[in-house]
């Protein structure tokens, strides 16, 4: 019983991180129709920036803020400088571009930050919470992870639903031509969209690193699982991405705990195949309107 509980709690924390990462992928997909594979190394780079700040003797939270800020800037720069020239061209160009960026960022990080395991501090304790005599596998840092992802999701909903800038961003993503005619600076909105997505990705990177070990490729599996989570949710739906992330986190944790850790990646892809066969639009896709 306790094993099941602890496995599920581990899966929940991990699922929240996948959810945040899937959300970042969905945000970019919605605004520019690009799957940003470079999201993982981008988050890795910002996490290493946080680590450098912390290593220089500053507090965890200053490092945290530095990572989110550099995530924001990195996202904006990548969109404005690298992605803009290929936007509107064949979709494959943009995908290959993000894959290329993936490799470049990896190599740069190895050169600058070193290619070895390093420990990343946790914001709060790494001991499980004690309930009576038993320790459950949920740390204060784990609770912080869950709350942080929920808070970010809440803020994004507020931004998109209830603010003027959110409305303009949605307009720019859905109907760029019309939006432009109505005076929306579409280019700026896309840049902002990438910046925000990169910020959410950085948050996911920080959360999964906290209280664990990092090295330049520690986010690589997360981009795979985040992508699977986003596809589970239909790639277009933020809520779907979050639910997909949770679902995937829980199922992978169960597979690893009860079947074998060597099957985790296989299980993730198995889930992906099954979902795509049964519901090609994703589990949470709205019923397709009939096309004429």
């Amino acid at each position, binding site marked *: 019983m306790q*094993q099941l509980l602890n496995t599920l709690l581990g899966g929940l924390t991990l699922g929240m991180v996948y959810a945040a990462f899937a959300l970042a992928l969905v945000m970019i997909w919605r605004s520019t129709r690009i799957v940003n594979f470079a999201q993982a190394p981008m988050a890795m780079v910002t996490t290493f920036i946080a680590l450098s700040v912390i290593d220089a003797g500053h507090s965890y939270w200053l490092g945290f803020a530095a990572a989110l800020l550099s995530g924001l800037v990195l996202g904006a720069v990548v969109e404005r400088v690298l992605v803009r020239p290929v936007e509107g061209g064949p979709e494959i160009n943009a995908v290959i571009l993000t894959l290329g960026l993936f490799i470049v960022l990896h190599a740069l990080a190895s050169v600058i930050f070193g290619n070895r395991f390093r420990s990343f501090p946790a914001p709060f304790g790494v001991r499980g919470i004690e309930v009576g005599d038993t320790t459950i596998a949920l740390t204060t840092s784990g609770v912080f992870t869950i709350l942080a992802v929920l808070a970010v999701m809440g803020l994004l909903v507020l931004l998109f639903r209830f603010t003027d800038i959110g409305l303009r961003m949605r307009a720019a993503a859905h109907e760029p031509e019309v939006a432009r005619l109505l005076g929306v600076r579409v280019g700026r909105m896309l840049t902002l969209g990438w910046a925000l997505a990169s910020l959410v990705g950085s948050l996911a990177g920080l959360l999964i690193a906290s209280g664990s070990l990092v090295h330049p490729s520690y986010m690589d599996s997360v981009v795979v699982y985040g992508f699977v989570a986003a596809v589970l949710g239909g790639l277009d739906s933020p809520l779907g991405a979050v639910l997909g992330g949770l679902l995937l986190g829980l199922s992978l944790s169960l597979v690893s705990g009860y079947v074998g850790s060597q099957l985790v*990646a296989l299980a993730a892809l198995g889930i992906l195949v099954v979902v795509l066969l049964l519901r090609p639009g994703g589990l949470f896709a709205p019923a397709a309107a009939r096309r004429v």
Partner: protein
Amino acid sequence: MKTRLRRTAPLVGVLASAVLLAGCGAGGRDDEGGEEGGGGGATDVGVTEDSVTVGAHFPLTGVAAPGYSEIPTGAQAYFDFVNAQGGVHGREIEYIVKDDGYNPTNTSTVTNELVLQEEIFAMVGGLGTPTHSAVVDFLRDEGVPDLFVSSGSLMWGDDPDSYPTTFGWQTDYESEGKIIGQYVAENMPDAKVGLFLQDDDFGEDAEKGVRQFLDDQIVGVERYTSGNTDVAPQITGLQASGADLVLGFTTPSYTALAKLVSLTTGFTPKWFFSNVGSDSALVGSLLERFSEGAVSGGGGALDGTMTTEYLAGVDQPDDPWVQLWQQVWEEHGEKGKLTNYRIYGMSQAYTFVQALQAAGEDLTREGLVEALQESGADFAGPHLAPYRYGEDSHLGISGMRLVELTGGSSEPLTPVLVTDIGDAPIEEDSSGQADDAPPEGGVPTE
């Protein structure tokens, strides 16, 4: 334009075949090299009158690099130390290290370079089970002595008929499993044992050894896949099985992860970690951020943990061998401190120098292998138990002692125990190997 293209086509063809031919030539150069270098009697590839060139593959970058990349710096320092005293039989040792990033594909490439371009005389200390497996056949087919593979897999020496030129060095994982298994069966008969294993040869060999003694006491077995850093489900599984003693056959990063996750889940068994995964300095540096008094930083992170040793380490500064390594490192080392990984590299280099001495002045590949096979078992040296080199086995050090880590140093739990793979009994070592002191001057003479 078109005609010009057509005219150049045959030229390109000719050039291509020329390149191909040149490539073929390189492979056949082995024998010529032998004759050219011939001065005073028989010599071989990579050997001249005043030098012998050896090579090795190590992960100098990548996730396996921490710790392991220090091994060749130790070996280099010792070779420099020997060269400064005139080398072996008048030959200086040139040591070429190539980075394979712990990726078997790269290992093949760099080994090709070492053997065909650099024309090394022997491979000395190539590291890793998956990596070295990729080149062991190639080295045999080329007739290159493949000495002292840095891995405890049984593959390096349990079958000298198939691999006559390959020699292991460190105590193999199966023997290590047997030694800890017997100790637990005799001294902790009521312990409920959990196994935490790397899901490859390393874990398999060790489990085979452990099960000889503990089959009935094992309550849970969990395997982690190298590369997947989420070991929480495995630790949770061990906890649920009720284990109160966990035997971990892990690499240092996974030792740290296991300790970390067990904090999260409130799992406090007695731990044993195998020799390769228990370098307290390295594991401590990975864990020091999470101290909060629970895991203290530095050398103390593994306090109370049991492990094994087959060499004296930096925590024993009074050991005459460690004093020699300290001197070598101060005189010839790079920046940084002497570590157990560097001692490992130096000890391997020491064994190689012994082999060169034993092979005599007329150095050939065959002669070297023969010399090791004949006299390797009697080599004195830093290793605590004798080598098993002989006609029937090319396995390395035959045993180790169990120790408990306390305050960054180690307390012996047993004397040096020797054994072999299979059903061989475990006995206290009577050869006095552990009491050897280094020769004066620090270079072996015979």
